[in-house]
């Protein structure tokens, strides 16, 4: 997994595949995301091709962290396998998912 922040620092693009081995990088990304002053932060996953169950678990942890930090976490543009996984796990009831 790779990530690229926009200039605004509250919008990050996540690219590649999101699996267990990305746990350290993910924590760094989330910490930086919540440092931004915005009340709403967005993860653009349009170019994320694959997510495994560890990845799903990490997203859920991020959701808890967002709540604790008083931020709204938005997931944008899931596609392919990622979109299918979101459907099966009813992620739209847990997150704000945008197209």
């Amino acid at each position, binding site marked *: 997994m790779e990530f690229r922040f926009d200039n605004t620092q509250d919008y990050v693009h996540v690219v590649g595949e999101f699996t*267990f081995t990305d*746990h350290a990088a993910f924590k760094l990304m989330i910490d930086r995301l919540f440092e931004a002053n915005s009340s709403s932060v967005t993860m653009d996953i349009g170019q994320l091709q694959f997510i*495994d*169950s*560890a990845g799903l*678990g*990490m997203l859920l942890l991020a959701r808890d962290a967002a709540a604790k930090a008083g931020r709204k976490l938005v997931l944008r543009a899931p596609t392919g396998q990622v979109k*299918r*996984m979101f459907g099966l796990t009813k992620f739209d009831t847990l997150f704000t998912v945008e197209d």
Partner: protein
Amino acid sequence: MFGLGRRKIAEEPVVEPVVVASTAANEVEPQHIALLQRWMALADMQQRVISTLMSEITHTSAFIETEADALSSRFQRLALSAEQQTDRVQSLTKLAVGIEVDGETVPIDRIAGLLEGTLSDVVQKILLLSKDSMSMVYALNELNVNVGRVDQCMAQLNSINKTTNMLALNARIEAERAGAAGAAFRVVAQEVRELSKATASLSGSMQSELDSVADGIASGHATLQRVATIDMSENILAKDRLEVLLAALVRRSESLNETVSDAVREAGSISTDVESMVTGIQFQDRTKQRLEHVVDTLKVIDQALEETKASTAADVPELAGDIKPDTEWVKRLLDRFTLSDMRARFVAQLLDGQPSDVVPYEQTNSIVPSSSGSAELF
């Protein structure tokens, strides 16, 4: 024609005048005798034909009765069979509706619902497991950092202890040089050295405890890595596939239901049809009666012919004696027959004067063109 040949009535006109007065009351002219003989022969042949017809009709009537009875019982067996089929088909509806488990019929769509619920539950538990595993991974990472810091503290402690020991040693050397004046100092220095030793020993214990903790964390980390890297995404996707299968199962169950309903309706209509067929077959009763009337009528005609023959022969003595059969028109009649066994019977009875059962009544039709037949008959 039949042997009288002297006079052909149609061709030659009457030459002699008819003298009625000079003949007896019961005397008949020769040409009239010939005519009467023809009529007698015709009557005789007609009687033979009537007799043959009567036996033919009686046999046919009996045949119809037997066949109708046989058909009737076949149809009744058919009706019974149709009923049994209906029962079987109806038991199929139960299979179509659901699956029997522990004496209870569980409908297919409820099964689908149950499975969907169970799978959703499993997926939710997988998610929770994944989240908690990752949470532990992060927690253990933090612990590792803490352990690292404590390790640094220990190192500093050991370093300080070493320095303390060195100082105590130096203090003892100075105390020796000072002689008696340094006696108190020597004691203090010794105490410090003892303290230092004790500290070193304690530090050693702490270090080994810390090492155990670090080992425990490392082991936990390895286990957690195994747990967290089990990719459950395939299992989650399996739910998707199962849902597709279940939907197909429900559709199949519905279409089975439809087919079974059609079958039950069809079976019902078969039963109705068979019942009307059996009723229809009862026609043979009326047919029998009608044929009996026909036979009776023929009998009457036969009797009339017999009486007329008898009274004619009584009035005209020339007519007594054997009547030669008129076979010409009979042959024309027989030519019209298509059933070979029937023609054979008629030939035997009409031409050869044989009894009615000489040629057996065939059960099946054998239609033969009228020009065939054994050479000896014609």
